[in-house]
């Protein structure tokens, strides 16, 4: 039973990390109506910048500066790239972000090379915070949980309780009207894009040391972030939160427990073939849950899209 608690905490860490990425992405989507394929690339940039800064100024300055740099870069991409492509329609926009993702990966490799970066946890947080039945919970994970929860609360507060947040929300739904009221809507869009990518940057800074910093890190996390916001419902912040946690827990538990297909199939009433070696479905019989844990979110997404195309919390028909 203790293990369940440990797994719940691990799943929470994964989920919250995913949420930091998907929150920015879903905000950007509700603003521009376009999925930003390069979102995970900004996450990667966050990790690399933070690594570079931490070499000179230490981890904490990295945490402070790197997201700002990433956010500014994101805003520039919106101003000089996306806004230009916007006139051609949605599909070219999507393709633009796709190309941008490729380009950022190449640029990162050009500058930092192709090896793993020795970006590591700061000494202050390199201890075991608590131990549950012999399973250590590193202090860094606790730090990750608190950081992401703090960011979520701050985001929610800004969006729902401040004047700026009101303008943003209004600009998302009725850009023309808001513009007529004298607000600079393109500036708002640029700001939201910048903040969204900065959030991805923060995720990169704190995930870099644990999930390792290498040129493939964007690709590994890239598509799963889309899956998250599609499952949660495009444009819904709460949906992104729920879907992130759901994916975090599903994958963690699927890996932590060896659920075998064999048991499920015999449980339903199928009979196991005596000789598996030449059987057509031999691979189906031998599947275990850890083997497919990281594919489950895709399965979930396809099922949700088939039966509920607007996702769990999505309001508008995407």
């Amino acid at each position, binding site marked *: 039973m203790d293990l369940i608690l440990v797994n719940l905490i691990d799943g929470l860490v994964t989920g919250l990390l995913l949420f930091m990425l998907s929150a920015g992405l879903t905000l950007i989507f509700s603003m521009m109506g376009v999925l930003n394929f390069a979102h995970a690339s900004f996450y990667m940039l966050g990790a690399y910048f933070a690594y570079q800064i931490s070499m000179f100024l230490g981890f904490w300055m990295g945490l402070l500066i790197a997201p700002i740099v990433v956010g500014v870069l994101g805003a520039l991409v919106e101003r000089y790239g996306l806004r230009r492509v916007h006139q051609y329609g949605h599909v070219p926009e999507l393709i633009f972000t796709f190309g941008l993702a490729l380009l950022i990966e190449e640029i990162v490799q050009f500058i930092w090379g192709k090896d793993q970066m020795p970006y590591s946890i700061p000494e202050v947080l390199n201890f075991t915070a608590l131990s549950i039945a012999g399973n250590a919970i590193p202090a860094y994970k606790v730090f990750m949980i608190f950081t992401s929860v703090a960011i979520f609360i701050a985001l929610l507060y800004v969006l729902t309780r401040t004047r700026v947040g009101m303008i943003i929300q209004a600009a998302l739904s009725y850009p023309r009207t808001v513009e007529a009221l004298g607000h600079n809507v393109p500036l708002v869009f640029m700001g939201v894009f910048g903040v969204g990518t900065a959030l991805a940057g923060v995720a990169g800074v704190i995930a870099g040391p644990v999930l390792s910093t290498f040129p493939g890190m964007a690709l590994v996390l890239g598509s799963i972030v889309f899956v998250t916001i599609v499952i949660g419902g495009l444009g819904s912040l709460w949906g992104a939160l729920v879907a992130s946690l759901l994916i975090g827990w599903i994958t963690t538990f699927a890996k932590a427990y060896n659920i075998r297909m064999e048991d499920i199939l015999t449980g339903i009433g199928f009979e196991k073939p005596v000789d598996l070696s030449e059987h057509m479905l031999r691979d189906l019989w031998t599947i275990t849950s850890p083997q497919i844990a990281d594919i489950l979110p895709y399965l979930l997404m396809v099922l949700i*899209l088939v039966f509920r195309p607007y996702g769990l919390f999505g309001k508008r028909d995407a």
Partner: protein
Amino acid sequence: MTSQTQNLSRSRGRAPLVTLSGALPWLICTLFLLLMPLIFTSNSALTIMNQMAITIVFALAYNMLLGQGGMLSFGHAVYMGMGGFMCVHLMNYVEDMSLPIPLPVLPIFGGLFGMGVALIVGSFSTRKAGTVFAMISLGVGELIAACSVIVVAFFGGEEGVSGDRTYGLPVFGIEFLHQIEVYYLTAFWLVLSALLMFLFSRTPIGRMANAVRDNPERAEFLGYSARWVRFYSFVASGFFAGIAGGLFAVNYEILTEENLNLATSGSILLVTFLGGVGFFFGPIIGAILFTLLQTVLSLQTEIWQLYLGVLFVATVMFFPGGLAGVIMMHALPMRLGKAGLLIKPYFKTLVPAVISMAGVAAVLEILYHIRHAALGENEMTLFWVSFDSHSPLPLILAVVAMVAGFWLARRGAPEMAEAWHKANTPDGGAV
């Protein structure tokens, strides 16, 4: 993308099905394909041309979705891959049980299998267009690619499934031992499938795909179900992707996970968009260019993918019609007989622009060499000139070329714009 309609309008009305002007490009292309092996005789050139042909068929099939149907797929490699896997299995059956299937008809089975898979996936994925379709295609693509390493029985795991094409029935005494025989087989299928895809775009269902792409609501009001139109295009596209897979199987005699994964799906999007989605021949140009970049440029420089990325992003930003779009922009000046007006300003702007780009490439190469080459190995060769990469002079020269080229191109730009405007205006006033 509107230029598509322009292209179509030429054959509007009750024109005869086959006209000389319509058939001429096809005849020229076929003749060209027949003569190519006489110019490029080496096996590697044939291999590269085969690779081009396969990419062309695949890109054309992909453009049936993207260009003609407005559906963005992130998992189209699945249909090509599945068709290919089926063909390799068939090849092995032919070998093991001596089935009387001659090799040249093998791709059709790949096509049918690709179509079958598209039928199943399309039944739920084409209900919606836009983001939902794109995301389902991504999900299905990831699922099947991931399954390919788990389901060893069909996909052969990481090492894939391989066969031998020479065990089939000899056709007219040809056993397909040599690359040249395979080339002609591939070329035959290329022309056939390209022609069929072209004709498909002329059928009512092909035209409706355009209508659904541009305005699904209006199409629905006309009494067409947008969903079924999308479904038919999707299935047809799956068929031709499967043929491309079959050709791949015949050429390489091996299919692996790589044929199904996201990277392959992504690169075909790149190919198609680079070439231009608005025209039938766009993907063909894209496929030729991409294959050249991939096989030839990658031998010359290690950072070719960086160039490719820049090229792609620049294309999306500045020429959303792709290369075909750029070429077709000149159709009007040509018709007006004013293309000559453009030559001089083009020369004045584009030559400095090319110099500037060469300068950028030189700067990148030098920086890359300084960072990654062995210590003491300072000598590098660039543009047929060998020099010391660590001395400042080459870098300064490259920067100067970059800046000066850019400045000259900038200066020539207004003149070019003016000439462009003039060339596109018929004599005697505005259009």
